[in-house]
């Protein structure tokens, strides 16, 4: 039994996409109840209702930030039930579509119908959860102290991304150490190597310290340093288009 949670429509384009999706769901015979968060009934309340009414599958429909928000709220609402979470991402070139192996709306609907499940662990920052990535971009590099599963490091960085998969993968670099685009083009034309400064590390627990409370953002998450990012202990069952993963 499916229960759809649609992102509130802000643009006419989205209304058209919703109509097209409803037609596809009807064609595949997987139409069901639809809810949309609004000021009178927020996401937590909708999920609570879905849980009480024992829906077997909750499907989030919308852009990546909304899907992240639903995944986080879903994890906080019912951490021990057996409900499955499905996604219909509207950002078809976004991270969630790529992670699910979905290239278009037809495939997203097909994945829901096939109901192939994958066990995943969400990323966790304080009491918030994220499905794909969190990160930060600074206009001026700052000195960071990181601890990744006991591995200590100190570095100045301007960009940081933490990607969730089987582990947490952290990438960071300092834009000041990279050549200016014009100089970079010059280097490229004359075959000169550009000195790399991208660091890629992975682990299950990442502790981040920065001198002045810098904010890490992703989906609905906004967390100030110092902070810890870890993989959640409880797995979620999500629907994927397995053939492409």
């Amino acid at each position, binding site marked *: 039994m499916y229960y759809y949670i649609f992102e509130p429509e802000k643009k006419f384009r989205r209304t058209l996409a919703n109509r097209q999706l409803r037609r596809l769901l009807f064609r595949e015979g997987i139409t069901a109840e639809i809810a949309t968060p609004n000021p009178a009934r927020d996401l937590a309340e909708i999920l609570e209702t879905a849980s009480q009414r024992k829906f077997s599958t909750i499907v989030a429909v919308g852009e990546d930030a909304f899907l992240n928000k639903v995944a986080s709220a879903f994890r906080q609402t019912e951490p021990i039930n057996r409900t499955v979470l499905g996604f219909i991402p509207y950002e078809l070139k976004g991270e969630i579509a790529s992670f699910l192996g979905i290239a278009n709306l037809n495939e997203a609907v097909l994945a829901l119908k096939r109901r192939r499940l994958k066990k995943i662990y969400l990323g966790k920052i304080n009491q918030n959860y994220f499905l794909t990535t969190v990160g930060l971009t600074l206009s001026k590099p700052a000195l960071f102290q990181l601890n990744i599963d006991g591995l200590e490091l100190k*570095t100045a960085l301007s960009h940081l991304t933490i990607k969730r998969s089987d582990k947490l993968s952290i990438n960071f670099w300092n834009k000041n150490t*990279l*050549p200016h685009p014009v100089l970079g083009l010059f280097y490229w034309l004359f075959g000169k190597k550009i000195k790399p*400064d991208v660091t890629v590390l*992975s682990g299950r627990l990442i502790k981040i310290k920065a001198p002045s409370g810098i904010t890490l953002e992703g989906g609905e998450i906004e967390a100030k340093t110092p902070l810890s990012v870890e993989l959640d202990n409880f797995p979620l069952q999500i629907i994927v288009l397995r053939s492409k993963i």
Partner: protein
Amino acid sequence: MLRQPILNTDSGTVVGTNVKLTGTLRDTQDITVHGQVDGEVISDKNVMISESAVVNGPIQAQAVTVAGKIKGSIQAVEKLEILPSGKVHGSLETKELIIRSGASFNGKSIMQNAQEEKDKEIRETSGKKKSSEKNLDLTALDYEVEE
């Protein structure tokens, strides 16, 4: 466009030029070091120590390529290559060792094949010794029967 480096997280661990790490750096995938590592570097695949890298600690991997500075032992199961800019201070243990002209190496090297051959030789020698002892016993027995 060139300011945004392409990030490929599937290729394993990469330590950037201006990064200093302390602790054990371990990965099942390849490890590439451009910065400084104070501690062990362990990979199930390949380790590449680039020209700008400094490693103070032991390295263990299937194959190790050194273009930077290393103070510590290197254990490469398959192959170890020290490039012209490479400087190694410590013991090496590998099956295949390549030291390019201009490279610097200070320490002891153990070739795993040579070690295996030495072990085999020792085993064979001890085997021969045992069989000759056996022969002596038989001679003794023969002699006793004759008496």
